[in-house]
């Protein structure tokens, strides 16, 4: 009989699934816009542009909610990797992903109410949520209101560095999303972690 612990409050789950849907929408429309080509039948350009704008604004709102709720609830502390031994714990976690998981070894750092994330997870989530997401959203907003972009950079349109940064951070988020969805299958069973994110109850 496995143990259960109520890990994720409703606001985190709602924010997570809202963001997930928005990021998937933004990925599809973003690819349609950046790789626009008559031979590549993705979402029609003007429709993709409108959806991308709306979903982008919704993601800004969702992120704002996340930051405020994190501060109010104290959840932000979960994203801070606590020394000492952060690197050692990361190495141990990486070894498990690359070897231990295949041998059926248990998670080296099981989830607890006090510590939701292993050190590697905390570091990556911190990088994604506090570096990549703000950069992606700010560059997206400048893209939407180009009057705030620099006029000229390197004798080219000043929107260029904004656009390139948006593209690169967007790619990092997409790569994270692929890995994140896959690692969601590495719980007690393949579906355990997905159920946790729906019900809030974590199963050991």
């Amino acid at each position: 009989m496995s143990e259960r612990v109520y890990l994720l409050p409703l606001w985190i789950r709602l924010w997570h699934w809202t963001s997930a849907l928005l990021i998937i929408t933004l990925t599809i429309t973003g690819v349609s816009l950046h790789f626009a080509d008559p031979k590549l039948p993705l979402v029609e350009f003007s429709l993709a542009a409108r959806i991308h704008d709306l979903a982008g604004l919704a993601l800004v709102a969702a992120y704002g909610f996340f930051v405020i709720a994190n501060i109010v609830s104290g959840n932000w502390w979960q994203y801070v990797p606590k020394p000492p031994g952060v690197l050692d714990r990361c190495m141990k976690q990486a070894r498990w992903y690359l070897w231990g998981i295949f041998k059926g070894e248990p998670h080296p750092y099981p989830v607890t109410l006090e510590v939701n994330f292993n050190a590697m997870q905390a570091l990556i989530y911190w990088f994604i949520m506090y570096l990549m997401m703000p950069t992606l959203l700010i560059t997206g907003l400048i893209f939407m209101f180009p009057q705030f972009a620099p006029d000229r950079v390197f004798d080219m349109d000043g929107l260029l560095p904004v656009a390139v940064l948006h593209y690169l951070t967007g790619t990092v988020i997409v790569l994270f999303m692929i890995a994140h969805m896959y690692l969601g299958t590495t719980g007690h069973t393949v579906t355990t972690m997905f159920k946790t994110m729906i019900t809030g109850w974590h199963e050991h």
Partner: protein
Amino acid sequence: MRVSGYRYLIALLLIGWGCPALAASDAPVDQTTIEMNRKANEACYACHSAAGIAKPPKADIDMSKLKDSRLEPMVYNPSDHGVMDCRECHSKTHYTDYPHAEAGKRETVGCTDCHAAKVLRLEPQFNASVHAKVQGVKEKFTCFTCHNPHINIVQKRLKDPAKIVAQDNHGCLECHNSSEMFAKFAPEGEKTPGLKKARPDIDTIHDWLPNAKAHWQSVRCIECHTPAVAENKMLSHEILDKEKSEKKCLSCHSANSTLKARLYRHMVKDEQQKYGFTNSVLLSNSYIIGATRHPLLDSIIIALVIATLLGVLLHGAIRIVMSLRRKKEESQ
């Protein structure tokens, strides 16, 4: 663009016989002639400028009549016609008396007198244009309606795409964004007999276009409101109505952007894939989603996404295989 057949013929014959005064030429005008012409034009500016109106050279002239014929040397001189003596077009014989005789206005030289060959080529295009198809409108149109000969500068001389956009869109928006000007040309409305057709609101009719205002600052109305154009060819003078105009975003927003043959036609020969970007001449003025590409960066990013997908698939496959092996071992 009213050009009668006999004027065509005369103009073509004059060009054929090598009449340089009446044939527009791309040859540069020598500096002495320019200075002589500009000196001669000073006599005109003495009245036909803001300074002239403020301080008339003669006391007994009604300067209020000049409000629509005012020009500044700093505007006229850089224009395509700015090297010319005003009297080349405005009659040498009727502008010696003050106030000038009415005949001067009637005898102003038309565009065809110099640009006959071009007009001959463009007239069929204009005749197919929305401006020529509506009853009663064609007759009101001349070259001046869209092209101001005192101000306009040709694309390859103006160079800066932002300035080209501002100049050319002004020609369209002067009427299409002003109900007063629109009414001067508008036919009778289909639903409003006896009344002029109301000017459609420019924002409303473009509401299908995302970021319409950003488009108007970055591209010309004619990018979409003229038919497809071949490389190195001049844009058509056939102005298309909303039904026929370009609505496919990918015409501009793709690697093979038609803007290269339109707004950036004069710059395409300078394309050097600067910093590795495709369409870098477009990027010199505007980042255009879909058209601004960096093939190397795109390839790296696509490779990273594929590698990540393959990585998780491989990881998952090994997990499944190892799990099956463990189960088999346990059952044994």
